[in-house]
Each structure stands twice: as structure tokens, then as C-alpha cells.
């Protein structure tokens, strides 16, 4: 068995009395893209948020089961959420740059961590923006507001902001659903380049996007993981009828 970087065992999540995740077992090997798909309310975004403890912010949430990042229990009392979110970064559906310059957006995490070395910060800004495939478009405007950028550029700056703190895992929650096809395609290309160095887990409603970029696809329904397999198998010959019905548009 290859060493998994992130493992989920018997993960249950309740919003009050309502069980939103019903015992998810899902592991991720290092590197590559996994897409989480499923109808609205199936639990895929809820699951994604458990992976860097974003659900901690929601009142009334109870989580049982185990999530381990490199054998470290993410929900252990001693776990440091700031450290976790540095190693497991997240990009959201709506591009959410801070109302600062592009430069300050990218170094936000490092600055909070106390990094002051200008040369080092400059290097990280360039490297992160290059990795996010937006450097050429913004390099002459680094000190202008990130809010002036297009939606697609903003989203790539947000990806650069995550990359700047050197995460191992990048979570994305419908990263292109607010973007036009050209910007979506640029994000997809960015992710395809990043998958060689990062473990990427993305929630998407765009099935073609999952089939285009994901190495593996996991199908969720009603709070359960129905099936996970190589993307090719899911889209050509899924094992479960529910998967087939969903991806061929018979429901959902």
C-alpha cells in the first residue's frame, strides 16, 4: 500500500441532529488531483471543509471519526489549526482577495508569521504568482489593488496566496463556478501544473471539469461516499448505478 498523505476513517458530521456525513472512508495519496462530485447537499463541500477544520467555525457541528494528515490527527486536542491551514490551504468559490495590493495579498500568510525579509518576500511573491500562472499578467501591477483584477485573475491570486505558505494539500471549493469559461480554463491549466507538486482536492459541479483535470473522482450522495475510482473509470464505466445515473444527468 502506498503511503497516503491524508486519511479519513469513519467520518461522521452532524449539524445539530442532522447527520450530514455518514461514515466517510477516503484516503489521498500525495500529489495529483481528486475531484469530489455529487448533487447539492450530498456532503462533498462539508467533507472538504472537515479536511482543514473549516467547520470548526460553524456552531452546533459535531464530528466523529478520524482524519489524519501524515499520521497526525487533525482533530486531536493538541492540533494547531493555524498550522493545519498552512499545510492544508483552501481556495473558495468566490475569489476573495483582501482589499490590499496583489503583493500584500500573496505575502499575507508569511507576514502574519513574522517574515520581514524583503528579498525573501519578493521571491515568494514571484514564485507563487508564477505557479498560479498569473505572474505575466500582474507583474507590472504588483502594488495595485487586487480588487481591480478580473475574477479569473483574482482567483489565481488567491491560489498564489495559498501557495505562498508552502502547503502540501490544496482544497478548492468550486473554484471556477463564478468564472467565465476562459478564466475557468486558466484555473484548470494552473491546477494541472500544480498537481505534480501538490495534493489537490477540488469540489466541483462541473462534471466535464472533473473529467478533464482530475486523476481520481469521488462521488458523494446523501452524505455517503458512493464510489471513488480513477476518473476514467468513473466516466466510462462506473461500478455503481447511482454514479452512472448522476453523471449521465438522469438525476441531480
Amino acid at each position, binding site marked *: 500500500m502506498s503511503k497516503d498523505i491524508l486519511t479519513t476513517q469513519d467520518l461522521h458530521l452532524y449539524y445539530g441532529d442532522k447527520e450530514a456525513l455518514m461514515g466517510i472512508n477516503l484516503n489521498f495519496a500525495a500529489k495529483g488531483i481528486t475531484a469530489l462530485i455529487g448533487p447539492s447537499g450530498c456532503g462533498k463541500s462539508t467533507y472538504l471543509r472537515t479536511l482543514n477544520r473549516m467547520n470548526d467555525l460553524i456552531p452546533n457541528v459535531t464530528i466523529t471519526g478520524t482524519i489524519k494528515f501524515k499520521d497526525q490527527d487533525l482533530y486531536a486536542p493538541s492540533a494547531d489549526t493555524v498550522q493545519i491551514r498552512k499545510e492544508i490551504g483552501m481556495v473558495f468559490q468566490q475569489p476573495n482577495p483582501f482589499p490590499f495590493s496583489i503583493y500584500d495579498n500573496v505575502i499575507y500568510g508569511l507576514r502574519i508569521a513574522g517574515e520581514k525579509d524583503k528579498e525573501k518576500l519578493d521571491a515568494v511573491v514571484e514564485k507563487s504568482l508564477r505557479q498560479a500562472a498569473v505572474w505575466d499578467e500582474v507583474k507590472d501591477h504588483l502594488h495595485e489593488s487586487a480588487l481591480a483584477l478580473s475574477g479569473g485573475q483574482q482567483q489565481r491570486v488567491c491560489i498564489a496566496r495559498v501557495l505562498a505558505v508552502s502547503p502540501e494539500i490544496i482544497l478548492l471549493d468550486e473554484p471556477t463556478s463564478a468564472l467565465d469559461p476562459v478564466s475557468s480554463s486558466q484555473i484548470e491549466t494552473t491546477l494541472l501544473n500544480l498537481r505534480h507538486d501538490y495534493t489537490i482536492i477540488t469540489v466541483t459541479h462541473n462534471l466535464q471539469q472533473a473529467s478533464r483535470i482530475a486523476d481520481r473522482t469521488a462521488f458523494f450522495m446523501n452524505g455517503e461516499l458512493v464510489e471513488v475510482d480513477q476518473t476514467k473509470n468513473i*466516466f*466510462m*464505466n462506473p461500478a455503481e448505478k447511482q454514479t*452512472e445515473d448522476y*453523471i*449521465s*444527468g*438522469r*438525476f441531480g
Partner: protein
Amino acid sequence: MRRLFDDELAELDADFTEMGMLVSEVVQQAVDAFMSRDAVAAQKLIDHDHEINQREIALEQKTFEMIALYQPVTTDLREIVTILKAVSELERAADHARNVAHSTIKFGSKQKIPGLEQLIGEMGQITTRMIRDVLAAYVNKDDHAARELAEIDRKLDQLNHQIRADSYQQMRLDPTFETGASIYLNVSQDLSRIGDYVTNVCEWIVYRKSGQIVELNPANSDSAD
């Protein structure tokens, strides 16, 4: 949930089956015309061949359109791919039926060779049955029947080999028979090819059901065109 795609697929499926029936008729007519040396029927068949080609093109266009507009996956994709591939096989089978019709006209009133005549008759029966049965297997989504049909194709290949041997034998015995014997050779080859195309359709029927691309044509199949 009934999708618009399902309606269009049902229509495509019906058009494909209709073309299959047309090809089946053409093969039957080609065999009948040859056996009775009916040059008029043979010419009629040649004159109508373009209709099958037009149907093939229309079906191909429709499948491309459905792939582009609906982006089908899993069984939907397999249904469409099966039709797209099988339609070409049927069209080629019809081309060989047309070749048989040309052979019928070319044979004219030359003397028949009873032994070869009987073998060709056998091949004709097997071929026409295969093409009828492959349509039934397609319509019934019966991958077992498809696999069995591919077995029958072996018999067709054996007969083809025998006809070839016997024709050469005839040519050696009586050189004036050369033209007639070569026509038997061609017809035998054409019928054998029709069997191979039917077997290819069988492969797509298996694919549609299982997602597996299989090779059902026997390895020793004579595939010379």
C-alpha cells in the same frame, strides 16, 4: 428522469436498426441474385447502393451532433459509439453485397460449377442469417448472442478456404474456366468479408454492454479486401 437525450438516442437507435434491416435485405438480394444469376435484380441493387451510403452519413452526422451537444458519458457514450462504429461496418458489408451483384452480372451465362455453386449457396445462407441475427442481437442488447455469432463466422471462413482451394483446382483442370472460377473466388471472398463485418458489429454489441473492447474475429480470418 426522462431526458431529451433519451428521445434523441431512441430515434438514432431506430434509424440505425432501419439501416441494418436495409443492409440485411441487400445482402439477401445479392445472394439470391447471384444464385439465380438474375442480372436485372443485381443491377437494381447496384443502382440503390448510394441510399445506404447516404444513411451512413446521416447517422454519422447525428452521432457527432449528439456527442458535441450532450457530451454523453458511460452507457450513453457507449450507445453512441456503438452506433458510430457499427454503422461503418454495415455500410462496408453493403459494399461487398454490391460487389456480389457486380459478380452476378459479370458471370452472365457462363457455365456453373456444381460443387462451387453448392458451397457458395451455403455461404450465402450463413451470411444472410448472420446479418439478420446481428440485428436481433443489437436490438435485444444480447452480448451472448453476439459472441455466438462470431463463432459462426469461423464456419464462413472455412467455406471460403474450401472454395478457394476448389476454384484453383478447377482452374488447373480446365483453364477455360478461369474467369468463372475467379468470380466464385470473388463472391466467396465478399461473403466472407460480410461475415467479418458482422463479427465487428458483434464486438461493438459486446462493448456497448460491458465497456470492454474485444476481438471476436478469429486470428486466422482472411482479411484481404
